[in-house]
């Protein structure tokens, strides 16, 4: 099986541009559909507005959206980074330590299920209402997919590769760094791709709980003023940053593990 996996051909600039164009076309398609829906259904403004109103809103207050986006982005990235690091660590601990697995796996899952929104008051009390509490919510949500995917990725390292390491008396560390973690990279990155969206959502939820800036606060404010153009503008910005982060993570994963899904 290993021998059948070939390095992916590097995308030519042209192909990359074409892919980008299609993605943009897809997004524009969605926007168009949404606008058509709005025109046809003609829902009241407090229920649903079209993307045109949302974009108009964005253009009207670019500075406002930019500064709040920047804040949310920082929180999400901090949470994602922490959550990824912690998640990979925990996933690895689950794989390598029977003790951790037996005793902590259930506890981990249990803790993950408690809705972070419900823990809001505690977060505020523990972390105050600054940057930290939002990054913490983002981290708490982003963490779990990495645990699962790291653990499952490490578990699926083929037997022959394990034997190769053993016969060469590889230390545990060498075995991890030269075989197991590399093999698990695609699974770990699958997890990271799930997490990056969750981290952005987590930061926003954190801002819902306690915030006076960031896109979550923009949404909250828009909600209270029934200002749907502003709300949907925030949604669009959120979607765009999540999308960008997703593809950065995806691309990083392919860079690190380029021998999957080769063409020829």
């Amino acid at each position, binding site marked *: 099986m290993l021998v059948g996996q070939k390095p992916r051909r590097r995308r030519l600039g042209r192909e990359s541009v074409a892919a980008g164009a299609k993605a943009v076309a897809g997004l524009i398609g969605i926007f168009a559909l949404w606008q058509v829906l709005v025109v046809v259904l003609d829902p009241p403004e407090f229920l649903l507005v079209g993307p045109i109103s949302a974009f108009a809103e964005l253009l009207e207050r670019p500075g406002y959206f930019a500064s709040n986006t920047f804040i949310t982005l920082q929180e999400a990235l901090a949470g994602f980074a922490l959550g990824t690091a912690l998640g990979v660590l925990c996933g690895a601990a689950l794989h390598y330590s029977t003790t951790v697995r037996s005793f902590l796996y259930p506890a981990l899952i249990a803790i993950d299920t408690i809705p972070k929104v419900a823990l809001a008051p505690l977060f505020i009390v523990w972390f105050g209402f600054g940057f930290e509490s939002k990054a913490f919510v983002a981290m708490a949500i982003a963490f779990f997919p990495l645990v699962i995917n790291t653990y499952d990725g490490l578990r699926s390292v083929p037997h022959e590769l394990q034997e190769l390491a053993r016969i060469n*008396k590889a230390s545990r560390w060498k075995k991890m760094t030269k075989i197991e973690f590399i093999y698990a990279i695609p699974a770990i990155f699958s997890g990271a791709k799930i997490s990056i969206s969750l981290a952005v959502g987590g930061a926003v939820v954190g801002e819902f709980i306690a915030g006076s800036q960031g896109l979550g606060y923009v949404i909250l404010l828009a909600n209270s003023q029934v200002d749907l153009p502003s709300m949907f503008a925030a949604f669009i910005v959120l979607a765009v940053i999540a999308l960008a982060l997703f593809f950065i993570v995806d691309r990083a994963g392919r860079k690190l593990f380029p021998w999957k899904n080769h063409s020829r």
Partner: protein
Amino acid sequence: MNNEYAISVNNVGKTYRSKDGHDNTVLKNLDFHVKPGEFVSIVGQSGSGKTTLLKTISGLQELTEGEIRVKGRLISEGLEDIAMVFQAPVLLPWRNNIDNVLLPLEFRGTRTDESRRYAQELLEMVGLGGKATRYSYELSGGMQQRVAICRALVSHPELLLMDEPFGALDAMTRDSMNFEIQRIWQSTGCSVLFVTHSIPEAVWLGDRVVVVGDRPGRIVADISIDFPRPRNKEHRFSAAFSDYVTEIESHIGVTAGIS
């Protein structure tokens, strides 16, 4: 007591237990010894337990009976410096060929600046000097096998276990590999356990040829080959050689086959 042997296999048995209670006794009452620097060929029918034997000696598979000592130490107490060529190449797809060859040194933490040059030499020896920076998917089956052989040799092992290393090679390439293995073995003085399906190859390379019998695997013959070293094509076409081949074939149950 066993210290004089490089490998000593004492009354070894191996039973695979499957979850449905279908036990498969693959090795039984196996006893044999390899002296330091000895080259032992192993032949036997497909499924007779050759791979299993190599894997138990290397410590990759647990015994269910008996004990194995490598350089006098029980393998269960920790592995010695062993290199193994597996029956399948098992190359890492994310490393190019020379980096695959260097892997054992990285595992052992003994990779030096020299190493790369030596790995390149080995690749040239097996005719793959030009493929050093290619990836395994760009190689033919036989080429992959040769990379795996280089990987086993790169760490200058004292004990070399090879499981049908030349199975995917054509006659010509195989011949040249045979010469190279003999040369390397003679120059390093390592002990070799060499599984092959080719009885002439077994005879030409081995100080001894051990014949593993079937169901369960046991040693049905252990024949010393008395040719001088280094051996050459002459020996291959001597009458004594044919006699050895015929004798071994009789132990396996073949009578002068087609291939």
